[in-house]
């Protein structure tokens, strides 16, 4: 069942009691506190990177934040954010858009935990530091089942503590440039079913100049985002096993496909091959996916 993001919002299983789980692993709790202490500087640094250096913009940001607020305000429990995946900084853009900086200072649980691929994001000290401070727990796609299971159990513990998580049901960046239900993973379903008091928030985010998958959005790109809650009652009727997890995952990808259609049919979106003209920033343009000399 795909739930439309109407102002009435509705309730989505949020009255359920949380499932008691073992306390957080000590290392994760320590990471949370260090990230929380560093967040004022860290958050501002990334805000500067995204808004000034990369010159990204979120179109209709007020509308999007009002939509999200309607969907999650009053809910004191965990939220599982499921999003499409096109670039290596989708999580950053989504977190930047979801709430103002002050909101994360007031309730740090809202800054979602992420599950980045170790091969991409643990390559050097800088990336490892940013991921540590950004509430990331690495996963190795195609890695040992036991290792994957340990990561999933960690995320179940986080959710049981009321933390938010952000997960990409497609696993990796979409090689087709569109949401691809064929490659959907079921982890998000497993996490949702293990957390009766969680809300499931689907978010679609894409820059106007993002034709397909890539490393970074082009400098100056303008992002349009959409969000809606997913109820998945058919999946809940199947219990909590892998069949139900698959049903939840398929419902999520269907919802993302519907949001993607909304993105493509948005009359306010400008069809671009390149973002708006911006001052040239030398080598930084290369790093941000824009050829040097492009103005």
């Amino acid at each position: 069942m795909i739930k439309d993001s109407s102002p009435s919002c509705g309730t989505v299983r949020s009255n359920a009691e949380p499932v008691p789980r073992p306390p957080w692993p000590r290392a994760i709790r320590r990471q949370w506190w260090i990230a929380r202490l560093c967040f004022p500087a860290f958050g501002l640094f990334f805000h500067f990177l995204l808004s000034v250096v990369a010159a990204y913009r979120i179109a209709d940001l007020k509308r999007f934040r009002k939509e999200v607020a309607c969907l999650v305000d009053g809910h004191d429990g965990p939220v599982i954010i499921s999003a499409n995946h096109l670039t290596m900084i989708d999580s950053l853009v989504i977190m930047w858009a979801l709430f103002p900086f002050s909101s994360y200072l007031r309730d740090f649980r809202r800054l979602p935990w992420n599950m980045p691929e170790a091969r991409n994001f643990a390559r050097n000290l800088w990336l490892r530091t940013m991921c540590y401070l950004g509430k990331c727990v690495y996963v190795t796609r195609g890695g040992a089942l036991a290792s994957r299971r340990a990561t999933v159990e960690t995320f179940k513990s986080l959710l049981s503590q009321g933390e938010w998580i952000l997960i990409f049901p497609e696993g990796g960046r979409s090689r087709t440039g569109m949401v691809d239900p064929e490659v959907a993973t079921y982890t998000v379903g497993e996490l949702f079913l293990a957390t009766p008091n969680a809300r499931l928030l689907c978010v679609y985010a894409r820059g106007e100049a993002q034709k397909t998958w890539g490393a970074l959005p082009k400098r100056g790109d303008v992002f349009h985002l959409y969000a809606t809650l997913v109820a998945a009652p058919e999946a809940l009727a199947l219990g909590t096993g892998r069949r139900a997890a698959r049903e939840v995952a398929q419902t999520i990808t269907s919802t993302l496909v519907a949001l993607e259609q909304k993105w493509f049919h948005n009359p306010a979106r400008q069809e671009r091959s390149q973002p708006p003209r911006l001052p040239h920033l030398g080598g930084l343009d290369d790093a941000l996916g824009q050829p040097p000399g492009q103005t």
Partner: protein
Amino acid sequence: MTEQPMFEAVVSIISRYAKDPEAMKQVSMNTSILRDLKVNSTRFVDVVLDFEDKFKVEISDDDADKIETIGDAVQLLQRLAPH
């Protein structure tokens, strides 16, 4: 069900999800489902669900985690669905 028909049924199910058609031509009881046939972990869940549907059994997470080779799957299914 004896081993050979069970083996053929298991291979038939797995072949729908294997990314390496060449490897499928040389399967044996020792063939690794994830490594040799390149079935990813999500599609492996589909494989297990198809086993359950085909043989009308329920496979626990613990049993599913122990399936590495085609032989493991055959032996498990023979235990759960002996007829």
